């Protein structure tokens, strides 16, 4: 059987294995980490990248879409962009490596490479399930990142912005973040290229909210036009905790952002919001697996997608409600504007409910902008094209306006409008 898979190995699969063999001697990690990496690479070797025959990857056939992988070359990343919100605490990884001597007032910060060297990272390098290709690749290659601990009852007023910067080549980062009981914070995970070539990026954030934590986590993905971005967010939400999670996709050629969320404490609330701005010949996939495991939890998920040109978008939203998770209230919506005849969007909402006393719903729409809204704007003298652009902008801006931090809303709206100005 192995012979067959070897024979069918794609260029990208071969390049991954080759890259691992070339780097294995210098990847940080103690014995436990090394064996964890070996297991992951063996899995990649024998199973390859997933195809459409794997249900979780049905709409993103990675084996076909990932045609090649750029060579793993070091890149010097020197600049530090202005944070989205003035006054934010900024920590930066540069081409996969954490800066030395980084500090944030009130937060414990360590380099992830230390966790690898000490071996405490080994358990986290395991995969979530057999289809966890992002976990496999990231776990095999990851060298660094940041480990953040927000102490119990800490309130961090200004956002913490994690800038994940890279040049061309291969970049793999990981960010284990724990929010102590009763802590309150906003974290912005921002992915940006500093070169114009091609990069292959994986990034895993592994976050836990202890009881009563109140967290806003915002992923802003603005990768370059040739970049592949495979992101994964692993989340555990404790009792009476509140998580506002935003995913803004505004870049990349081949993008998959996975959200693996476990609502594990009673009385907790999740607000998930997503904005996908898609254009050119790109492929962007947001895959959510949300488990409500305990009684009395609530969640809402709203995604707004705008698709131009020949771009393709995918949203897979799985909500699982366990047998014990009575009184779960979960609402999911995925709304798409298709701006060209060749634009595509696939939405696959799934509900898997074992409890009998729950409120769960999902809806997916694909539509043009509202003719009444356009007429109203035009009746005030706004020309048709300007009016359309305003309404497209409004369709997604509505989502970010729910945030409390006015500066953050402005910053995200600026990203949205500048993207739309470049594509409309």
């Amino acid at each position: 059987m192995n012979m067959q898979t070897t024979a069918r190995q794609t260029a990208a699969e071969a390049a991954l294995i080759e890259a691992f063999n070339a780097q294995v001697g210098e990847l940080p990690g103690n014995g436990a980490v090394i064996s964890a990496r070996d297991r992951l690479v063996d899995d990649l070797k024998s199973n390859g990248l997933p195809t459409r025959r794997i249900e979780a990857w049905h709409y993103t056939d990675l084996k076909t879409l990932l045609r090649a992988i750029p060579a793993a070359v070091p890149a010097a990343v020197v600049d530090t962009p202005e944070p989205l919100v003035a006054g934010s605490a900024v920590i930066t990884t540069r081409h996969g490596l954490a800066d030395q001597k980084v500090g944030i007032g009130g937060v414990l910060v360590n380099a992830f490479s230390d966790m690898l060297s000490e071996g405490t990272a080994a358990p986290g390098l395991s995969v979530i399930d057999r289809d966890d290709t992002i976990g496999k690749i990231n776990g095999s290659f990851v060298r660094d990142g940041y480990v953040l601990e927000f102490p119990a009852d800490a309130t961090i007023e200004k956002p913490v912005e994690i800038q994940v910067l890279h040049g061309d080549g291969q970049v793999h980062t990981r960010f284990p973040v724990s929010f102590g009981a009763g802590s309150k914070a906003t974290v912005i995970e921002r992915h940006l290229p500093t070169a114009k070539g091609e990069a292959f990026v994986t990034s895993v954030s592994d976050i836990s909210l202890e009881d009563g934590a109140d967290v806003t986590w915002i992923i802003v993905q603005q990768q370059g036009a040739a970049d592949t971005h495979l992101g994964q967010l692993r989340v555990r939400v404790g009792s009476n905790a509140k998580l506002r999670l935003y995913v803004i996709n505004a870049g990349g050629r081949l993008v998959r952002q996975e959200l693996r969320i476990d609502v594990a404490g009673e009385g907790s609330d999740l607000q998930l919001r997503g904005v996908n701005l898609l254009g050119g010949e790109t492929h962007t996939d947001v895959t959510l697996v949300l488990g409500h495991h305990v009684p009395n939890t609530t969640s809402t998920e709203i995604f707004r997608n705008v698709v131009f040109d020949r771009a393709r978008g995918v949203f897979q939203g799985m909500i699982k409600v366990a047998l014990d998770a009575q009184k779960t209230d979960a609402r999911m919506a995925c709304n798409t504007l298709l701006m060209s005849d060749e634009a595509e969007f696939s939405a696959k909402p799934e509900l898997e409910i074992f409890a009998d006393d729950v409120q769960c719903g999902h809806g997916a729409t694909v539509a043009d902008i509202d003719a009444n809204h356009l007429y109203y704007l035009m009746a005030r003298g706004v020309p048709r094209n300007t009016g359309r652009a305003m309404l497209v902008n409004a369709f997604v801006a509505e989502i970010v306006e729910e945030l409390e931090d006015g500066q953050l809303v402005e910053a995200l709206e600026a990203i949205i409008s500048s993207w739309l100005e470049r594509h409309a």
Partner: protein
Amino acid sequence: MLEIKNLHARIAEDGTEIIRGLNLTVKAGEVAAIMGPNGSGKSTLSYILSGREDYEVTDGEILYNGESILELDPAERAAKGIFLAFQYPVEIPGVATMQFLKVAMNEQRKARGEAELTTPDFIRRVKESAAELKINPDMLKRPLNVGFSGGEKKRAEILQMALLEPKLCVLDETDSGLDIDALKIVADGVNALRSPDRAVIVITHYQRLLDYIVPDTVHVLYKGQIIRTGDKSLAHELEANGYADIIGEAA
């Protein structure tokens, strides 16, 4: 200023004819009231004047300052100075009220070849007009019309009218849903805009609004035609006797 000649118009989608040979002339400086029972075509007439694409003009002509406007889209008509205050202003989530006002004012100015407003000038104008209409500044921080009460929406329409300084104002049932205090504020706002070079068409069901915005002419619309024209006393006659007599005469 406005001449409507033998206008016939129908709903584009299903071909239902609503306006059936309507004639109306409104001069500069005039306030004309259009009254009529439900379903007579009052709102349709206002939509057609504004250029709404759900309606098709099948015959006749609409001349504005001597020029046909039938080929113009709503934005072009607005830039030429035609303004419709809606009976049901739409809520547009995600569009900030201030941004909308600024875009609308500046796009109209651009279309007329005028310089755009500076931000301080724009803000000053909005603040002044909003204060006159007793509009709470917090309202202007919200998305356009979102969460506004019925009365707030109507006041926001008059605010837009005051800022855009149109030449032909069409008020579609602006009195509906207003209590008497709000009605007075709105009427004062409209009266402040009365001028020799501006015409106002007030579409209404009831005499009440016309006590505050006193019309020069009153026209009764029924089944898509103007069946009677008179002065303000006609409105009082309708209030006292209803439409039945006039409709009977016309038939």
